[in-house]
């Protein structure tokens, strides 16, 4: 009788393991997918934020400036692929010819290489300069001729 019970136990245990293994891998995948979709949404929102700032500075005319603090635009977290990061590839590209901000999102968590998204901006006269004491990172200023983005070139690149 003992042999009989052991064989059944093995069969039941086998089935349980199969079902549990399936559930674990599906749950892990769903966690990663949910996280990835959330990060992609946040990455897009960052692009929208930057685009809105550029458009506002352009619309408000000469002398107007906006400061985006590290609490608003944290490039370290933006670039990080850890749980709190967004996996955005830096530098962010401001393309003046197509008048877009181009964001590339690393999606290795879900087996994809990269996803790209473009957000439209109004002005074409945009340039980048290194941050100064007067205009720290990340400040956007209208000098009358150009919208100047004060940011390190490893973070934002203007084409």
């Amino acid at each position: 009788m003992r042999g009989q019970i052991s064989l059944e136990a093995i069969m039941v245990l086998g089935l349980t393991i199969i079902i549990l293994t399936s559930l674990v891998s599906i749950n892990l995948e769903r966690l990663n997918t949910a996280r990835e979709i959330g990060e992609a949404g946040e990455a897009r929102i960052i692009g929208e934020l930057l685009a809105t700032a550029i458009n506002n500075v352009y619309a408000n005319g000469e002398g107007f400036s906006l400061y985006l603090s590290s609490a608003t635009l944290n490039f370290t977290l933006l670039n990080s692929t850890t749980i709190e990061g967004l996996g955005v590839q830096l530098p962010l590209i401001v393309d003046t010819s197509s008048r877009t901000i181009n964001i590339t999102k690393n999606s290795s968590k879900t087996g994809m290489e990269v996803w790209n998204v473009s957000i439209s901006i109004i002005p074409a006269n945009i340039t980048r300069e290194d941050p100064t004491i007067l205009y720290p990172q990340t400040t956007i200023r209208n000098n009358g001729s150009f919208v100047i983005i004060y940011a390190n070139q490893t973070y934002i690149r203007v084409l």
Partner: protein
Amino acid sequence: MGEKGQVSLEFILVTGVLFIIVISLFPYLSQQNVLNKATTMARDGGIYALSLLNMGYTTSFDQDISYPTDKWRLKDVEIAYAGEVNSLKIYNLTLKVGTGGDDPPSSESNIGKFLGAVATNYIFYGFNGYWTTVDSNLWANGVTISDYKFYVRVEFESG
């Protein structure tokens, strides 16, 4: 006749019947588990890709690809047995995608291949625990999981 012997005999009968049930159901449960898992993973892959496409993201899958201008959604996932080839049970999974106001592309279009490849990659991950490369070869060749081969195709419909 002692009481102990009687109990043992009943126990042997009950456990014997249970044993037969478990043995006879094992192949069916195992197969059903594989098919359920493949369907679930394909659905998750479709939802993931559509979510990012609807957020305005583009992919490097192919240069010539028509992206959604309206919101697309996954309506249904179907699985159908398509026979046996070289001892592999072939299953075709069909993702039914509603394209809103957009004209529905063909299943063989690049966007159809892309969505199918992402879903296939998800099936691959579900059974292997790691990702493979999302490309047109993955879409064309499908994915082999032990005795099964899965192909994912996408059917677009307006609405």
